[in-house]
């Protein structure tokens, strides 16, 4: 059984400065027992991936309310793949229209949380997903 706490990088990418949601999520995740690293604002895709690799995280949670998600998320997925880190699970929250949500999922985003999602929804999903990952023993 994997005793290690699930590590989550919570990040704001691009110029979007709305951080109310991401900070509430970060704190909720921490209170729920996860190890949370918050990137702060205005990170580039490169900076997000660098931090994720450095911090050896299991999940990346991205918050984007600027509408620029289709320019910012795909590079992150690509960089993770280029760094052999496809096992890091990426989820996205913010203002993401359903069609874009579908497109992001096709690219490899595991979940898209809309504005009415609750912190409980997010925590439950992470727990579920982390448990599945442990079962399939993706990490050596």
């Amino acid at each position, binding site marked *: 059984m994997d005793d290690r706490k699930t590590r989550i990088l919570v990040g704001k990418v691009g110029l979007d400065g*709305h951080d109310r949601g991401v900070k509430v999520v970060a704190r909720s995740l921490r209170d729920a027992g996860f190890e949370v690293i918050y990137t702060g*604002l205005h990170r580039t895709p490169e900076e997000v991936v660098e931090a994720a690799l450095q911090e050896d995280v299991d999940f990346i949670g991205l918050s984007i309310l*600027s509408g620029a998600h289709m320019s910012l998320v795909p590079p992150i997925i690509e960089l993770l793949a280029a760094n052999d880190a496809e096992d890091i699970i990426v989820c996205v929250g913010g203002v993401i229209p359903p069609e874009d949500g579908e497109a992001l999922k096709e690219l490899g985003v595991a979940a898209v949380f809309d504005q*009415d999602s609750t912190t409980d929804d997010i925590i439950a999903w992470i727990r579920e997903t982390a448990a599945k990952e442990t079962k399939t023993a993706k990490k050596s």
Partner: protein
Amino acid sequence: MALADRTEIPGQVAKDSDLAEIAKAKTEWEETELKRFQQRSPERKKQFSTLSGLPLERIYTPLDLQDLDFAEKINFPGSYPFTRGPYPTMYRSRPWTMRQIAGFGTPSHTNQRLKYLIAQGQTGISIDFDMPTLMGYDSDDPRAQGEVGREGVAADTVSDLDEVLEGIDIGEISVSMTINPTAWILFSMYLAVAEQRGIPLGRLSGTVQADILKEYIAQKEWIYPIRPGVRIVRDLIVYSAKHLLRYNPINISGYHIREAGATAVQEAAFTLANGIAYVEEILKLGIPVDEFAPRLAFYFVAERDFFEEVAKFRALRRVWARIMKERFGAQQSESMRLRFHCQTAASSLTAREPLNNIARTAVQALSAILGGAQSLHTNGMDEAHAIPTEQAMKVALRTQQILLEETGAANTIDPLGGSYLVETLTDQMEEKIWDYIRRIDERGGAVAAAEQNFFQIEIAESAYHYQQQKRDGELTLVGVNKYYDPSSDEGLPFELHKVEPGVEEIQKERLRRVRKQRDDDEVEKRLAELTEVARSDENLIPATIAAVKAQASLGEIVKALKTVFGTYVETPVF
């Protein structure tokens, strides 16, 4: 002082003998009729409270206002302490400005939307800019990729602003620009456009938001560190107060503080604390307070708790008036009266069942009107999904027009004045605002408090608490955590704004063309001069105007001053 010992005091709500009788009757009522009725109809909660946690009693009576001095606390509109409004006639002579924000795509797209809104009866203009422009990047900057023209219009050079305002008489209509770290640049561009069009500065009315202090703690748009940021705002206010008699060079804002998660009390207190900081900064230059204070304007939200919001607006006016008079020794009324733009609460609107947002917005707008706002933006029903469509803005604008023309709400001044509830809430709000201002003063003022992360922690705490209340069902969101209809997830009842493809390329091409036909030597010279001014303590605006007139781009100007001021690095707290 016991009730029985008091003699009649002028301005008292009810005579002492009456008060004693009311007290007696109230107790009787509570012990008989009320008790009986509660047995078959218990109240929904043990304790009700406003959104920010002030207790809400079952009823309010003259007993609650027994210490209220009408002349001292309420008085008349346009008279100290301006609780009832900044002007003697308010909407009876001049309704609030209906000022729906617009900004997306290319300058021409935004220009079309502005003209549409004016044609539908809008009485003031409000422009929103894209993230790169807000943050100081040109459209061709690597940091701008994917963000050009998305959440607002791109303004790289003065010709962009000119095109946004094409065919609009800026000598006649007031123009507000929602811009902060780069406000001083857009302001300079605006003056350059006015000069090009032969419009004297004295005719220009409008505003730039420009309040950088609230950025560091709430909206999070920044370039330079806090103190250079404040210096820039200082220069903007000083220049404008001197040269533009009808212009408001700042909107000291609570909206974003609230939207970041603060309570109503925090919104009010933190905004006024920031206001104090700006006034102090300018006074350091030896400029008399009455020479600039009349041009300070404010910006607050109209949130969901109806009566609390009205009380908040009244308390704000009362507190600011006293600050200006007693703390800063202002002599002119115009320095003491708080005027504000208002926007209904975007974060209160839901993604699910978005048509409900029309109702939410209408009620919030009413609170702004009953609270005496000078200018109002009502949100679109699609607020939680995308920037608003024409249709969403039309309905929102009609909402204001209906409130003005059909409800009678604007036909008397401060209609809720005298309400036992609203006067009590106003007093309570006022007290709590003063508490915070004292605490912030103890920390050395708003700038120091921001550097200490004081506001940021308070706001994050409130935001977290609010989220927990939603989660626990304490705070109802109709259609979301109560009355949830699964069929509402099957699609939206309207089209959303579509971002036109190619905007980024168009904007980059515009910028290329400007750079090609301008005199690069002159630009370099102007930027060098501006950099020198930045190094000194001289006013930045004249050199900035010269730079924008030479077609220096926003990004180039910002970069030049980074060499002097450096950049801000946040210490995030959650």
